[in-house]
């Protein structure tokens, strides 16, 4: 890899962001704790009957995972904005969409991937039937990158605002509703013995579309916010 090339810049950015997360790995555990706490609250509220819990398990886990990811989303560009490196990314000769794509990838790897890893634990807490678990994991694997991608566009629009938390939630949630409907819908269909491939394929199609368009949109939004 030639120093100064676009691929070298992307790898440097990936390495730096991953290193930053590793240095503050305690913070990276917050979304996991949040998801576990949210899921653990439901049996307290609804009572411990396995039949009730297993019926709502997939949807609850989906909502908990999406909320946990949302929690970490508004920090996506914050430290970069504070130390000025975000502006350096914007003025660098490399395509901004690609660099932002790297940052989104790091966000997904450090928040969504651990959440998917603990999803079987969450499923056990809520008595999700074993045959539904693979569908749940597949749906999460398709829906969480969507949230990272769409969320990054919204974060780029709100970057630089002091209290953006509530506003960010308002922007992201309507856009992420289809992913939730189809993701949780696939799990419910599988649990009831229906065909579940159609919603998963829809999710995959959206993911492909978002993979291409969202980094470009995030770059355009960031340029609007930083002018």
């Amino acid at each position: 890899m030639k120093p100064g090339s676009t691929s070298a810049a992307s790898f440097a950015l990936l390495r730096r962001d991953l290193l930053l997360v590793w240095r503050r790995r305690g913070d990276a555990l917050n979304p996991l704790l949040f998801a576990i706490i949210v899921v653990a609250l439901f049996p307290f509220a609804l009572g411990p009957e396995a039949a009730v819990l297993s019926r709502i398990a997939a949807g609850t886990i989906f909502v908990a995972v999406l909320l946990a990811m949302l929690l970490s989303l508004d920090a996506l560009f914050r430290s970069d904005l504070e130390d000025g490196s975000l502006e350096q990314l914007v003025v660098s000769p490399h395509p901004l969409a690609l660099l932002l794509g790297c940052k989104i990838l790091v966000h997904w790897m450090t928040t969504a991937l651990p959440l998917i890893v603990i999803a079987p634990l969450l499923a056990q807490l809520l008595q999700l039937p074993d045959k539904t678990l693979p569908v749940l994991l597949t749906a999460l694997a398709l829906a969480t990158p969507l949230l990272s991608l769409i969320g990054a566009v919204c974060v780029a629009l709100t970057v630089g605002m002091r209290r953006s938390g509530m506003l960010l939630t308002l922007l992201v949630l309507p856009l992420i509703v289809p992913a939730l409907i189809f993701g949780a819908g696939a799990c419910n269909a599988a649990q009831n013995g229906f065909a579940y491939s159609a919603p998963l394929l829809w999710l995959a199609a959206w993911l492909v579309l978002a993979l291409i368009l969202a980094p470009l949109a995030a770059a355009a939004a960031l340029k609007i916010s930083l002018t």
Partner: protein
Amino acid sequence: MNPLVLWFHKLGSPPYFYRFAGKWLPWLYALALICGAVGLYGALFTAPADYQQGDSFRIMYVHVPCAWMGLFAYLFMAANGFVGLVWRIKLSETLAMASAPVGAAFTFITLVTGSLWGKPTWGTWWTWDARLTSELVLLFLYFGVIGLYHAIEDRRQAARAAAFLALIGIVNLPIVHYSVIWWNTLHQAQTVSLVGPSKITPSMLWPLLTLAFATHVYFFASVLARSRVALLELESGKDWVRALLPATETPHD
């Protein structure tokens, strides 16, 4: 230059637009009021009661035009936002942001009247039907655009960011429109269509179309009025505003 294109270019200038909108506003309001009154008279008195729903179907005359306007206002906002983002036309940004609260209000009225209509006919105030849900998402999108616009200090940057969000949210529009076809649940499919015959009798149809026309005219009047105020705020340091404001203030003294 073609006179129409010339007029269009002139309209992009805030002082020209301000005078133009001021001239049209009273006429638009009057037209909306008259059409609305005629349409409501037709809806409440001349249209026959539905054979199945009785008089409760008459809420359709508020519900359906408002639902159309909720979608139309979003389209108008997104189109203006697109023009504002691409060609950096200040007026388009202003128009886009002026239509957001009006569209949100229409969407809100749609949800409320739909809920009132749902109680006697469906037996429930609210159901998680696809059309209702996507309409609710539309309302949240409006709130997001309005919230983002008011959260950013610089007015023009705020308008650009909010317009960008409106463009992203446009993916919801086909979902709202086709939801009754894709998911065949409680909400009925459309009976009025632009192309081909409508599945509604003419005596029930004309008040609906009159009211739809009235809401469109009201929408434009409201957007023009809002844009006028927004332009005064945006351009408050400019000469034309200074020249204008003392003149409008003297009658009150």
